[in-house]
């Protein structure tokens, strides 16, 4: 319906933007394929010598690859825990009014917005006192601070678009609540659960401050391994960029699975 030159302009503008978006990432990926002395040697548009040495180091050196395993471990743990507590709560918010519901919802929001820096000192002491310090569970629990409110928000949005008459019909048909929730209701909000899981994964995966504070040796995440390499042995750009490039892969994989619903998810399920 619109003139084609307007469409062409829009397409070009979007293309320029996406290329600009990818450029810094591509530059890092290119760096990771070069030996360290080459990187610092001189500026080149395209590397002369390609090598996979940096990646080889990461995959064979336990101090590197355990970082990835730790990160994935607490991220998955956080995802499961956050969803488990958020699902019933989101149902309550979307289906009922109850004493203090509005205040509770607002309080959850403020926790999503709370700066991690505020909680640094106390979480360190708290988790040490309960004996969780330096375990994946500690990081998973700490990340629930912002992921649980987020999951509740997203799920509530998705649940509210399911008509209430479905609940009523199912209950009249003799479904008991747990069975109804698991067998009838959950399949209806499948995509919402997927999106909420995606966001829990995302925010747990990218966070550094709490993860760094709550771990020292055994549960050290990859992000921390990277920052400590920077301060310890000068700057090994090759390894650092290779490690950075590898951190993109889980994200890229999960985006692919939720690509259809991702936009609605970013709108906290409220579109």
């Amino acid at each position, binding site marked *: 319906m619109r003139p084609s030159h307007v469409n062409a302009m829009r397409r070009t503008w979007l293309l320029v933007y996406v290329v600009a978006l990818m450029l*810094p990432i591509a*530059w*890092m990926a290119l760096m990771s394929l070069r030996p360290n002395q080459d990187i610092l040697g001189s500026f080149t548009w395209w590397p002369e010598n390609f090598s996979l040495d940096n990646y080889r180091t990461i995959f064979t050196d336990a101090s590197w690859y355990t970082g990835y395993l730790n990160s994935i471990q607490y991220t998955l743990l956080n995802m499961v825990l956050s969803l488990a507590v958020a699902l019933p709560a989101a149902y309550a918010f979307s289906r009922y009014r109850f004493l203090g519901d509005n205040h509770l919802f607002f309080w959850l929001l403020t926790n999503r917005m709370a*700066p991690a820096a505020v909680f640094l000192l106390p979480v360190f002491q708290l988790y040490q006192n309960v004996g969780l310090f330096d375990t994946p569970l500690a990081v998973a629990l700490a990340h629930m*601070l912002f992921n649980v409110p987020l999951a509740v928000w997203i799920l509530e949005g998705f649940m509210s678009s399911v008509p209430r008459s479905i609940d009523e019909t199912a209950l009249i048909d003799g479904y008991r609540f747990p069975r109804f929730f698991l067998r009838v209701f959950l399949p209806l909000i499948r995509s919402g659960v997927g999106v909420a899981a995606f966001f829990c994964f995302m925010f747990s995966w990218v966070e550094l401050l709490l993860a760094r504070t709550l771990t020292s040796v055994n549960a050290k995440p990859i992000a921390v391994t990277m920052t400590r390499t920077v301060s310890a042995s000068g700057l090994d750009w090759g390894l650092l960029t290779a490690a950075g490039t590898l951190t*993109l892969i889980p994200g890229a994989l999960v*985006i692919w699975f939720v*690509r259809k619903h991702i936009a609605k998810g970013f709108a906290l399920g409220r579109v």
Partner: protein
Amino acid sequence: MSDPSKPHNNKAWFLVLPVVASVAFTAIIPLVIVVNYSVQDIFGPGNRVFVGGEWFRNILNDSSIRDSFWRTIRFSLQVLAIQIPLGIAIGLAMPKRGWRASMALVLMALPLLIPFNVVGTIWQIFARADIGLGGYVVNDLLGITYNYSQNPRDAWFTVLLMDTWHWTPLVALLVYAGLRSIPDAYYRAATIDGARRLAIFRYIELPRLRGVLTIAVLLRFMDSFMIYTEPFVLTGGGPGNTTNFLSISLTKIAIGQFDLGRAAAYSLVYFFFIQLFCFIFYTAMKRQEV
């Protein structure tokens, strides 16, 4: 959420209980500990003195913290001024469906899933004059002297650019989601009325985008107000104090100097402002839903 036809049932609290318990453990207990710290001067284990509101007076009168506060506010406002219009422009340009739409979605979401410190690393490398593409192009091809680790203005610009790169896709995705929810009939009616592109945007798209734009403003303001990792990796708060935002300066006091009482009071004042902003945004959002 605030649908008045919903049945009133206080038993719903049982369903909310797990959330309350988990957030109590991750938020309330730590907050109580912070309050406890903030009224004491702690010299070591078992050696502490009650000082009342001393730390709060100290924090509120500290000019460098006040500078950090205004610096962070300025940063957040600049972030909004750049990223919201840019995000709208990109969201509008996105194809509505088809493989191009999926492609654009996936590529644009990618920066959002990069660990914050890796975002810092990416820009650290990209903007360096000797080995980075961006720094090289600006310095050698455009002939503009640019060094983010020494020049305060360059450092500020780089952090702002990095944040724009990192988070504008979020705004664009929100706008895209909002646009998708506008029925085609609206556009058809507008075309029949002979509405121009600008009029369609002003009278059809913008009003329907209000909800998602409120969320975008809320998320972008709050997240930029507590930004830590990316500038920490890129500039470490420098040069001088140019990019010493609230979270960075708080972390320096808490972990660097291990000044517990002072850091705790700082945390509470910081948290108070977050609550205040949240309240303002939340009230605005509620008003829109009605």
